[in-house]
């Protein structure tokens, strides 16, 4: 299945586009990095130097040795992995049902799922507090997980449905004829083909749990249980933010995301379905 070799111009064009956007992508983050190295807690700099004068890693070492950063990291990793796992399982099942079965209320269900995303989060603060109190979810990771999974699911289900939709039904039919049960036709034939979708679902669920702040601030009332975004918010105060720590923490927070993406993204670019569908 060799592709014909691309002309040099096309390849050059690819590099040009990617390079330009790579620079645009990292420049603001380099500024954040520069804040984290800057002594004296300043958000703004009056010059454009990337490495500030008198730079130091003081913020990073303070973060790791003096602040409970590693504890927050652990909490966040735990919550985010569990949410990712639950989200992927639920969305891969739910999306499959919506893609393949014409059951009563299917359209309504899809729309209802979508509507949950339409309400501005601002107004949810008050009822969420009441709900969290009534369900006794204060200070539990379980409480966080329920909210995160339900926040991530609508997108994930729709996304998975979209992926299943691109997989021809003939594949399952063939598997059923070969003697597969409904469940194993799904897990053995369809699921492997939907890996790119699963990766996106996983990444999205992970990010939802990883960066969420508002619900966490309501559920967690004990600093030992803080997740990273809550911990980082500790450094922010109106008119007296600790910019060095804030920036350093933000940089460190994004590293696991990059790692997760790096691991998962090989399934996004490997051309998995090559040759799977010969109709």
């Amino acid at each position: 299945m060799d592709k014909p070799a691309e002309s040099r111009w096309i390849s050059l064009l690819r590099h040009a586009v990617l390079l330009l956007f790579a620079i645009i992508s990292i420049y603001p983050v380099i500024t954040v990095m520069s804040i984290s190295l800057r002594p004296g807690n300043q958000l703004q700099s009056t010059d454009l130097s990337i490495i500030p004068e008198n730079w130091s890693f003081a913020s990073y070492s303070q973060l790791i040795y003096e602040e409970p950063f590693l504890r927050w990291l652990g909490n966040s990793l735990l919550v985010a992995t569990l949410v990712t796992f639950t989200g992927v399982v639920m969305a891969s099942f739910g999306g499959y049902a919506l893609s393949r079965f014409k059951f009563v209320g299917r359209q309504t269900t899809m729309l209802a799922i979508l509507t949950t995303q339409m309400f501005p989060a601002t107004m949810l603060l008050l009822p969420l507090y009441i709900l969290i109190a009534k369900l006794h979810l204060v200070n539990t990771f379980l409480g966080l997980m329920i909210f995160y999974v339900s926040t991530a699911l609508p997108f994930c289900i729709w996304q998975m449905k979209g992926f299943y939709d691109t997989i021809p039904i003939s594949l399952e039919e063939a598997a059923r004829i070969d003697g597969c049960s409904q469940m194993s036709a799904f897990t053995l034939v369809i699921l492997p083909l939907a890996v790119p979708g699963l990766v996106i679902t996983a990444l999205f669920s992970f990010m939802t749990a990883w960066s969420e702040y508002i619900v966490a601030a309501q559920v967690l009332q004990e600093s030992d249980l803080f997740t990273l975004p809550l911990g980082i918010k500790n450094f922010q105060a109106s008119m007296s933010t600790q910019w060095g720590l804030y920036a350093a923490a933000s940089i460190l927070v994004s590293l696991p995301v990059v790692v997760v993406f790096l691991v998962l993204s090989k399934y996004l670019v490997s051309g998995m379905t090559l040759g799977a569908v010969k109709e």
Partner: protein
Amino acid sequence: MANASSIFGRRSKSSCFQYLLLAVLCVQSGCQQQEDDRQVVTLWHQMVPRGRVVLDRLIAKFEAENPEYHIRALYKETEELRSGFQAAALAGVGPELIYGPSDVLGAYHTMGIVQDMNAWAPSLNPEDFTEGALTFLPSHDDSGQRVLLQIPDRFGNHLALVYNRNFISSPPTTTDELIALGIQNTLDEDQDGRFERYGLVWNFVEPFFAIPFLTGHGAWVFDDSGEPVPALDAPECAAAYDFILSLRDKHGIVPRNCDYETADSLFKSGKAAMIINGDWSWADYLETKGIDAAVAPLPVVSATGKPMAPMVSPKGYSLNAFATPESAAVAMKFVLFMTSEGAQRELMHELKILPSRKSLHMDPFLTSDPTLLASKQQLANGRMMPVDTELRAVWDAMRPHYQSLLGGNASAQEAAAAMQRDSIRSIELMNRKSTGDSAAWIWQLLGILICGTLVVWQRKSLANFIPDIRRQPFAYLLVAPALATIFLTIAFPFFYNVMLSLSDMSLTNFQDWKIIGLANYLEVFSENKFFTILLKTLIWTVVNVFFHVAIGVMLAMAINGPIRGKTIYRILLIIPWAVPAYITALTWRSMFHFDYGAVNLLASSWPISLLTTSSWFVALLGSPPYNWLGDPNLMFTACIVANVWLGYPFMMVIALGGLQGIPQELYEAARIDGANRFQQFRNVTLPLLKPVLVPAVTLGAIWTFNNLNVVWLVSNGGEPADETHILVSFVYKAVFNLYRYGYGAALSMVIFVMLLVASLISLQRSRATENVYG
């Protein structure tokens, strides 16, 4: 096939389950409360980092003396503490104690979420505290008694002048001297139009910082009646604003764009000779290397002979109205400990703030410390910050007009008159008692009727429901867990909001709200700004989503080919999504700064200047440098740029995933048919990307429509002049600045319905619920 299934092979499956088991155990242990029979008291505070260190130390001391108690201190940012406490107190999960400035107490008291501390502190002698430090308000029950709502551990929170002794030997005592010193210290040695040093800086955009100018000119936010009646259009106010403008425009001693962070950075890096800032910041300046900071009282206004008087207020502890008697007793014990002489002395030493107890004002440490002495001098001519709820409406009305005055879009008189008009309107909105009082049963009946109609309308589907479950239980089984989770968390908040939107919940009816009907909805549509903001929101959504998708798909296509360095590109391009938006949004804001921002510097540098100075570009945006943060249209553009940046990696990932699902055979076939690259893209790539992109685009549009954070952070809450708003940030302001919960809920419902209709239409058109192959 074999290749593909090995990814989900049996080996990895079993390890997955082991992992899950392990994780569940971890969660269990996370849920378990510490085996601890100490009585816990929770405190939400908003102390600055330095203060938290002392707080922790004092808590440790208290717990050592009282081993049966545990104080759980949680930091919350000022606004978040306020909005969070209101909601949490009402839900019954609030902290026993809150710590903060006194200006919110009027509102808390009206809402009934703080309680009288008198009964819990019989030993407290008001005579021991500085005049005005303890906050008393009239009780609700017409008995004429005054309830004690806050016991402070400090008194001040006031502005003063901080100057750099490297540049200024003795601080100015009059504004004429201030201007003279300012002119001496405003330098542009290389004549490039960018100043190396400014005479004076301060948080130019915030009205709180304009108060000393007002008082120095003989004005005040309220009139002399003793009632909280705004007096913002007095001629003295206009004189004060003219004076502020003259510092920038006539004398040129302050920078053009100067918010809190800019002022702070300029002073800390020795690029400003003087700064006006509050007592929370001084200790930091005294320790900053490279400058030699000292504090002095603000000068006397030369034209009037009156001193510039900042607002002063106590900061302290208040008791949640819903705290149980047992926990309230412990909480108060802690409060008395924290406001005792010993504790306050420690705070004064570490933080350079003034104590609230009289006895400590004679303390040798205070009388020998130059900073504290200057602070005390400044405090002596300060003016008490009112605790009336109306002050919030005053700030809210002042901010936009003050900013448009600074932007040169209004004269001092016009701005002052507009402030007065808006503050009166805001106060009226905030304190409005509900008028409509239609009985709740009408609405219950209506609700039942609507449900009934739906049932009758959908009776066929409902009748088929049970047989259908029997027919294909597998489908229902797959979808049920997800649906249950989603609706568990969303159903209650949703219906609660429907109720609120029909109710009169507001500052004055916070706990005893009742259903009043459609009044809030009428108000939503009669708001002048509604349609302008809606239009802005639509532009915001369309432009953002367009660029997200266009850039995302383009990058995905570029990276999805035979190309070197894929991994590196992939990592770099994902970065805007990976780094938390709450910091990158602020970074973008500073990149748009007039003098120091990268965007303006880039725009005027070669080769980009070739583009930006071309005639059509100038016609579109004007010529560089651009006043991004000061001009409403440019500010809005800046918000969009920042949000496009934040959003394209996500779409790129989605598109990348979608591209994997497209069989190569289709491209081969297209090539054989003689299709060129563009035709391949149009006829193969796009149609097959569609099912994957549709959910992302639909949801992306919804999220963008409701994206509060980016607009709020980049525009610093709607600057300039409160013009940079989309609907959600407008809701946020209405609810949290003016306590209009009912109105906010109604506006949210309107947003909800608009999005619902729009999604219905677009889904109908894209047929996204249908299968592409089917």
